[in-house]
C-alpha cells in the first residue's frame, strides 16, 4: 500500500450521526439546558451563506429521478426564486416567462450529497501544511470542529461540483480519535470563508471511530487505546463524564464551560447527530449497545463494510450505513467487504447511503451507486434506478438532518438540481448543468460557469475542463 492510500486510510474518518431525539432518555432534560446547548452551538460561527442569483428555470422532456424513489419520464421541473416549484410528467403546468431548457435525452436528479468528505480538511495539494483532518494528539477530542480546518480554496470542491454534481456535503474530522470532533455540512459553493459555505440550519454531526485506526494511532505511542476493549472503555468513560457534565450544568453551580462536553451533551440531547466510523459487524453491534447504555442514537455507521452481515439488526435499529460500493482489502477490518453490501442492506429494509471519503470518488458517486446497484441486481435483488439515486440524495440528506430543505425534488425545497447529459447510472454520463438554490454554478457549455479556486489561478491548467 503506497503512502497515499495509507494516508487515505488514516484520513478515513469516523462520523457517528446521532439523531438522538428519539433515544430513550431516562433523565428529563431541562428545557433550558437543552436550549442552552442548542444556542451555544448555533451562536458560534454562524452561516453567512446566501443563495446566488437565480433564473426562473424550466426543464422539459427530461427523465427525472426525484431522489425519493420516483421516476418521471418525459418529465418537467420548474425552479423559481431558488426553490423547486413543481416536478412531474409532461402535463405539469409551467409559466411561459421562464428560461426553458429542452431536456430531451437528458436526466435530472437532485444535487448529489456526500455524507462523508474530507475536502477542505484534507485538501489538495495534500502537503503536510494542509493536513488538518485529525487532531491526533488525544483519542478524545469532541471539542474540535471540522469547520475550523476547512480550507475553502481546496480545488476538490470544484471537481466535486463539475464532475460529480455535488451540491451539499458533510466534512468530517478523521478517524484517528474515538471522538473526532464536530462535522460541518456545507453547500458546495465557492466562497472566501467557511461560514459562507455553511448549510443554513443544518444540525451538527459528531464523528466517532471504532476499530483499527484509534488503536493503531495511540497504541503505537503506548497510550490508550491500544486495543478494541481499550477503545470501548475510554468511550464509555467519556460518555459517563458527559452525563455528569450535563447534570451539573442543570444544577445550582454550573461547571466552567467545556466545549468538548457541550458537543457530547448535544449528542445526548439529540441535537447533534452521531456519525460513527466502524467496519466490522461485531463492532457495529458493540457500538449499538453502547449507544443504548447512554441513551443516544447512532445516525449512521460510516464505511461499515460488514453491514451486510447484520443487515437485519441495522434495519431494526434504523441506523444508516454510509458505505463505498466496492472498496476492500486495504486493511484487515476491510477484508470482508463485498460489492453487494448496499444491495443486501436495501433488501433487508435498512438505510443505504453511498459515500466517498475520497477526493476522486466524490466526483462520481453516481457511478459508485450504479456499481452497487448492478451487483445487487446480478445476485437477484430487485432495486430500481430511482432507489439507487436515493442512496446519494435523499438518504444522505436525511442522515445529515437536512432532508426538509434538500435531497429530493419536492416543491418548496432548495433548487439543488443536476442536469445530466445521459443517465447518471451510466459510465457515459456527466453533469451538464448544476444549480444550487436555483443559481446555476456550473454549465459545461460555458467556460465562465466553472469555478477556479485561488490556488489554481495563474497555474498551468487554470480553468481547464479537468
Amino acid at each position: 500500500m503506497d503512502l497515499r492510500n495509507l494516508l487515505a486510510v488514516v484520513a478515513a474518518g469516523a462520523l457517528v450521526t446521532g439523531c438522538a431525539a428519539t433515544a430513550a432518555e431516562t433523565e428529563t432534560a431541562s428545557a433550558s439546558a437543552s436550549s442552552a446547548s442548542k444556542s451555544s452551538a448555533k451562536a458560534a460561527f454562524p452561516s453567512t451563506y446566501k443563495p446566488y442569483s437565480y433564473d426562473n428555470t424550466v426543464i422539459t422532456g427530461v427523465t427525472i429521478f426525484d431522489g425519493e424513489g420516483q421516476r418521471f419520464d418525459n418529465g418537467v421541473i420548474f425552479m423559481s426564486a431558488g426553490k423547486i416549484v413543481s416536478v412531474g410528467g409532461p402535463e405539469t403546468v409551467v409559466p411561459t416567462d421562464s428560461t426553458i431548457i429542452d431536456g430531451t435525452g437528458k436526466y435530472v436528479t437532485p444535487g448529489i450529497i456526500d455524507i462523508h468528505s474530507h475536502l477542505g480538511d484534507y485538501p489538495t495539494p495534500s502537503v503536510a501544511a494542509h493536513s488538518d483532518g485529525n487532531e491526533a494528539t488525544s483519542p478524545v477530542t469532541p471539542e474540535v470542529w471540522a469547520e475550523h480546518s476547512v480550507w475553502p480554496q481546496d480545488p476538490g470542491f470544484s471537481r466535486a461540483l463539475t464532475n460529480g454534481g455535488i451540491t451539499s456535503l458533510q466534512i468530517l474530522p478523521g478517524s484517528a480519535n474515538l471522538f473526532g470532533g464536530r462535522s460541518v455540512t456545507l453547500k458546495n459553493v465557492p466562497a472566501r470563508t467557511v461560514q459562507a459555505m455553511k448549510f443554513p440550519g443544518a444540525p451538527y454531526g459528531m464523528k466517532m471511530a471504532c476499530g483499527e485506526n484509534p488503536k493503531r494511532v495511540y497504541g503505537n505511542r503506548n497510550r490508550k487505546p491500544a486495543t478494541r476493549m481499550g477503545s470501548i472503555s475510554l468511550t464509555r468513560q467519556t460518555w459517563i463524564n458527559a452525563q455528569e457534565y450535563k447534570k451539573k450544568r442543570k444544577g445550582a453551580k454550573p461547571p466552567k464551560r467545556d466545549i468538548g462536553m457541550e458537543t457530547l451533551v448535544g449528542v445526548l440531547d439529540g441535537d447533534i447527530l452521531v456519525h460513527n466510523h466502524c467496519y466490522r459487524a461485531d463492532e457495529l453491534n458493540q457500538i449499538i449497545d453502547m449507544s443504548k447504555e447512554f441513551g443516544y442514537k447512532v445516525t449512521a455507521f460510516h464505511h461499515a463494510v460488514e453491514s451486510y452481515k447484520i443487515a437485519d439488526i441495522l434495519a431494526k435499529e434504523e441506523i444508516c450505513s454510509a458505505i463505498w460500493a466496492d472498496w476492500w482489502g486495504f486493511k484487515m477490518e476491510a477484508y470482508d467487504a463485498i460489492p453487494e453490501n448496499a444491495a443486501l442492506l436495501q433488501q433487508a429494509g435498512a438505510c443505504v447511503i453511498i459515500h466517498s471519503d475520497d477526493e476522486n470518488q466524490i466526483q462520481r458517486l453516481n457511478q459508485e451507486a450504479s456499481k452497487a446497484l448492478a451487483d445487487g441486481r446480478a445476485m437477484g435483488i430487485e432495486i430500481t434506478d430511482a432507489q439507487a439515486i436515493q442512496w446519494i440524495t435523499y438518504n444522505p440528506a436525511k442522515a445529515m438532518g437536512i432532508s426538509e430543505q434538500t435531497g429530493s425534488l419536492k416543491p418548496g425545497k432548495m433548487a439543488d438540481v443536476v442536469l445530466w447529459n445521459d443517465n447518471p447510472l451510466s459510465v457515459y454520463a456527466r453533469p451538464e448543468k448544476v444549480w444550487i438554490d436555483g443559481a446555476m454554478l456550473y454549465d459545461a457549455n460555458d467556460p465562465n460557469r466553472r469555478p477556479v479556486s485561488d490556488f489554481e489561478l495563474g497555474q498551468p491548467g487554470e480553468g481547464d475542463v479537468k
Partner: protein
Amino acid sequence: MKHFAKLLVSSLALMAAPVVAETVAITGGKVVVGDGSAPMDGATVVIRDSRVVAVGTNVTVPANARRIDASGKWVTPGIFAGFSRVGLVEVGAVSGTNDTSAADSVFSAALDVQYAVNPFAAPVAVNRAAGVTRAVVSPSTGKSIFGGYGAIVDLGADNNPITKARAFQFVELGETGHRRAGGSRTAAHILFRAMLEEARTYSRNPALLDSDMLKASDAKALLPVISGKTRLLVHANSANDILKVLGLRKDFPSLKLVLVGANEGWRVANDIAAAKVPVLASALSDLPYSFEDLSATQSNIGRMKQAGVQVAIGMINDRDAHQLRYSMQYAGNLVALNKVPRATGLSWDEAFAAISSGPAEIMGMGGQLGSLKAGRQGDVVIWTGDPLELSTQVETVFIDGVEQSLSNRQERLRERYRNPTPGALPKAYDR
C-alpha cells in the same frame, strides 16, 4: 459470473483438478478485437489449447469444439492492467502480506517481484472474476529510487502466474524519487546516473565496483536497463520531470523508457511523442494532489493520444493491488469525455484498446497478448453487455485457453449472508 448455479459449478471446479485447455468456439457474440478496431457483430472466436486460433464473421467452427452461444453478449480479450501491484498484496496494511516494497533491504534494482507474486491471493481471484486476465506487476520503491524488476503476470487459477519475469525495471524520478534520493530531484538524477555508470564499471571489471554505491546484484540488474534489453518504467508526473526523464537518453541513448503516471503529460505531449516514449497513464487524475500534478486533467490521455503518444491506462498508486476491476470504469469515463465541451477523451474503440492491446504493445508483448487475433494467448471474456458500462457483468473468463473458476471470497461471503439471519445452525455452517 453471478448466477448461483454457475457459481456452484465453479466452486467445485476450484477444488477439482485444473481444467485442461480445449477447443472452444464462442459464437454469435459482439466481438471486440481490442486493437482499436470497431466491434464485429455476430462473430466467432475459436480457442484451441492455449491460444486463439480464429476470429471473425466467416469462421468455420471445428467439429470437436465445445460451443458457447454468446448471442446478445460481448466477447473481448481479457482486460490487461497496464500498471498494478496485483498478487503482491493480500491486505494492504498487514505488512506480512504486502510485498510491494522493501525499505529495509540492502538491495534495490535487484529486487524481483517474480518471487513474491502470489497467484492464490484473494485480489487475484476477485479481479479475475471481473474480467482482468493479465497485468503489469511492479514493485514500489523502498529506500532507493529503483524498485526492482517487475513482471507480466496472468491472473489464472493455477500455480504459475508469471508470463514474463524481469519484464522491466521500475524507477521513481518525480517527487517520490526526490524523497528516496535524499531530498531533491538533483539527488535523484545524480543517483540515477551514478548507479548506471557504476553498473557499467562493474560490467567492465567487477573488481572496480564501489560497493558503497551499489551491490553487485543491483549492478547486474541495471546492465540490461542500460543496454535497452529491459524496459525502464519511470514514474514521473510533472511536465518538467517528464522532460528531464526524456533527457536521460542523451547520456544513456539505449534506454527503453516507458513513462508511468504522467499526470501533466499533455503539456509536453509533443516532446513525448517525438521521443517515441510510451506512457502507462493514470486515467482520471484531475487534482493537484501535489505540486507535480498542478495541471492534471482527465483529458490527459486523450490529448496525449491526439499528439501521437502511444498511451494506455495504468493505475499506479491508485488501489493498484485490489481494484484492477476499475479499469473498465476508467476507460468508460474517458469515452464520456467526448460529450463534455473542451474535453478530450478516447473513442470507445481506443478506450478499450487502452486496457487490452495498449498495455501489451507498450510492454512489447502485443504479438502474444492483449487482442483477439489468431496466435494470441487465449485470454477471452464474455460479458453480458458493453464491458465499459457499469451495469455489465462478466459471464465467462478464459486465460491461456482455460475456462476459469470465478469463485472468490467475496462471492462466498455474499452467498453466506444472502439472508443474514442464522438458520438452524450458526452462519459458520453455511457453505
